[in-house]
């Protein structure tokens, strides 16, 4: 009897490991930024490059930081979802236009709609490096104190907005700044 039970147990252990491994997303790297202060930036705005937006301007409010680019295919899939979120006016959405040409980016917002309160430009990708960006689109949730509370890699879906983002935003907005 033992002769059959031991291989069976070994097989089950192996199968469990493989099943877990199959369901992990290798691109989902845990961000070291969670619950750390958001990296500071001060960057020109996309629409009015003479003006700058800095992290200090956003103190006291909950904001989404969405990294996007006109060359990014998944961003196109994500865009209507962000437009829908912007319509609800639940949260400030800041865009980081990552390694993009300003003209292309503006054209993209004109044709597909602009969900961002402000988009800032990061043409050489330095702000991206500071924020640990490696796969566009990425989305960060920053609380009133300027601390990063959540990070998504890849396009945000309506489900993640309903189930994760909106409840978190509500909770963060209730917090003291």
């Amino acid at each position, binding site marked *: 009897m033992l002769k059959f039970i031991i291989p069976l147990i070994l097989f089950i252990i192996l199968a469990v490991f493989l099943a877990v491994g199959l369901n992990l997303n*290798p*691109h989902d*790297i*845990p*961000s*070291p930024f969670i619950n750390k202060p958001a990296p500071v930036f001060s960057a020109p705005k996309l629409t009015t490059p003479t003006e700058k937006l800095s992290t200090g301007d956003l103190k006291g409010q909950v904001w989404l930081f969405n990294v996007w680019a006109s060359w990014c295919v998944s961003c196109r899939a994500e865009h209507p979802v962000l437009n829908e979120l912007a319509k609800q006016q639940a949260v400030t959405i800041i865009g980081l236009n990552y390694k993009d040409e300003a003209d292309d980016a503006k054209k993209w917002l004109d044709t597909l709609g602009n969900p961002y309160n402000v988009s800032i430009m990061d043409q050489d*990708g330095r702000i991206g*490096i500071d924020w*640990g960006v*490696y796969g566009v689109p990425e989305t960060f949730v920053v609380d009133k104190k300027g601390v990063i509370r959540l990070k998504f890699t890849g396009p945000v879906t309506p489900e993640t907005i309903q189930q994760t983002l909106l409840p978190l935003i509500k909770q963060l907005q209730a917090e003291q700044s």
Partner: protein
Amino acid sequence: MKIILLFLLLLSPIVNAVDTYQFNNPEKQAAYDSLVSELRCLVCQNQTIGDSNAELAADLRRQVYEMLQQGKSKADIQQFMTDRYGDFVLYNPPFKATTSLLWLGPVAFLLIGLIAVFLFVRRKKSLPTADHADQDAEKLAAARRLLTDKDTENLS
């Protein structure tokens, strides 16, 4: 001839990705070379930033170059990268609670294997050898009987 050419092609060294930054200081050059071969390109994941042509890899090489030129040490740059991308960016991750399985896993499997071999060998050895001898003797006797029976048959 074709085979030889193919072979030469296979032997040709893998060319490092495009831009190579030059340093006047050989120590910095060495630090740069070792850093770009130790940091993971997070877009392609199985390449170092020195091997990869991805834009992010190029940006990270530029970052490494600039930090070295500013006089930052290798440890500073590794810290800078792990602060932003986590331990995953290092091809040689540090030993801590979250990476213990990674480091100890192979040792554990080796131990399990050794124990299994030990148990297997011991069980083999402990099989009663006397039985073997008895069985052999019996078989031998049976064979002899057969032979002698045959002989007598032939004779008759």
